[in-house]
């Protein structure tokens, strides 16, 4: 299962965090900093998976943003690696080539999108149209 998903910039500033397993508020910043440090220390030619404590991290970098997913031992790392990409492609579709600022100015919407894809630490939807449908309907209702 997925334990958490983070979007952090290279300076270590968290732009989005979603926890699927309860982690105390006070402990999150330290966890995130540690996780990001571990991923940023990796070189380009190294694999996108890191052992961390008793679980694993799958990370993928997109320009200034690092997306890190914490997963349990039995999870298929490569499928999560591609899930991250699917997520970014969905964001690209909604924001027309998403940027770090899009995420910052639309934190609630990015969460809403993520909620369509992952629930209780499991992948529940990967069809881009279906992922975006509820948010697009919401946008339409809000405009009118």
């Amino acid at each position: 299962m997925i334990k958490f998903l983070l979007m952090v910039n290279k300076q270590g500033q968290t732009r989005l965090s979603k926890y699927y397993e309860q982690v105390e508020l006070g402990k999150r910043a330290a966890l995130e900093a540690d996780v990001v440090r571990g991923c940023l220390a990796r070189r380009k030619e190294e694999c996108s998976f890191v052992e961390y404590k008793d679980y694993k991290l799958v990370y993928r970098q997109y320009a200034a943003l690092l997306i890190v997913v914490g997963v349990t031992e039995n999870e298929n790392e490569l499928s999560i690696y591609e899930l991250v990409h699917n997520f970014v492609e969905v964001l690209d579709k909604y924001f027309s080539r998403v940027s770090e600022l899009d995420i910052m100015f639309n934190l609630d919407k990015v969460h809403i999108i993520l909620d369509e894809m992952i629930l209780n630490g499991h992948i529940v939807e990967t069809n881009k149209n279906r992922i975006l449908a509820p948010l697009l309907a919401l946008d339409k209702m809000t405009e009118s």
Partner: protein
Amino acid sequence: MSDVVEKTLTALPGLFDSQTGAARITNRLRQLIKSITELTSKHDEENLIKQELSAMKEQVSSPNTTMKQMREVMVRAMYCEMLGYDASFTYIHAIKLAQQGGVLEKRVGYLAVSLFLSEGHELLLLLVNTVLKDLQSTNLIEACMALTVVAQVFPKDMIPAVLPLVEDKLSHPKEIIRRKAVLALYKFHLIAPTQVQHIHGKFRKALCDKDPGVMTSSLHIYLQLITESPDGYKDLTGSLVTILKQVVGGKLPVEFDYHSVPAPWLQIQLLRILSLLGREDPSTSELMYDVLDESLRRAEMNHNITYAILYECVKAVYTIHPKAELLEKAARCIGNFVLSPKINLKYLGLKALTYVVQHDARLALQHQMTIIECLDHADYTIKRETLELLFRITNAQNVTVIVEKMLDFLHGCNDEHTIIHLVCSG
């Protein structure tokens, strides 16, 4: 994703001044975001957030705050908590927002609740009435939101209050409602399995739903149930094999494709379930040989997601009752992974070998040289995975060499978890 942080940062003033920009976000939220981008120290951050929190405290207690403004407050609260600062005074207002707001505000209220409150939080009880109301709403969007939040966080003791309504949604004409109802029931099963025992029959209906999305959501429940006790579900094998065949054969609408691969995560899910059903059961395994062969063949394309499916396929082949031709193909697949220059594949290959070596030690021996090379690999993750593998295949002849390498590794290893894990496995 565009790579233009600098470009967008200089565009910042434009964003604030433009008509559309101002219409979408108010002063306070944009000010907060602007300030966050300008932060240079932890001290700065603390001051900023302290100020922000006191401004928010005022706003939430003011009778003049509109629902629209409250939504902004929630987003600001999300930011504060994301940075690690407690904004618990806003929690009750999140629930109020879900209760009283228009659609977008309601959604943000629900979102805030799912982010702020965890299982067992006393405020969750206050959510129940709002959820009940929204579940019965003629507005599908509201019903969807309610189902989503129920699947994320809901007080266990109040399940009976919403269960009939959620159950009812299983036969709704819209697929999104049926799909989300199934996921809500999955949540109920996770937190209070006895409460949903009586509706297992309805999960079957969901599995056979004509909409692939609804069928997929039922698989979460089935994976759980089958992991707990596979025997009760062997009769599902036929249906699951048929579904996988159809997916692999490209029978799903094209929108379920990801880079031309049909519903890859669904394939992976099905392969996992089938492994559990076929394990130590020759007759059940017999039913799946064809489709596994098909999957191994179809996954020819050079894309990461295809490799991810292949990995799952290989694991399945080695988990169920053995079939020689399949094992051969799977072994070749693992070989390709381990020898691949693509580092992620190499990792997956090593991981597969570790899994497989319990069933077939010879495969590991076949790749001994590559494995020994990986032990000296520059990538720490690869090294560690290799060591893990080596523990499993050590035999009398190569034990000295391996123990020496292991000791070298442990001497150079700083990570506590790794040391404990590896020493215990040894």
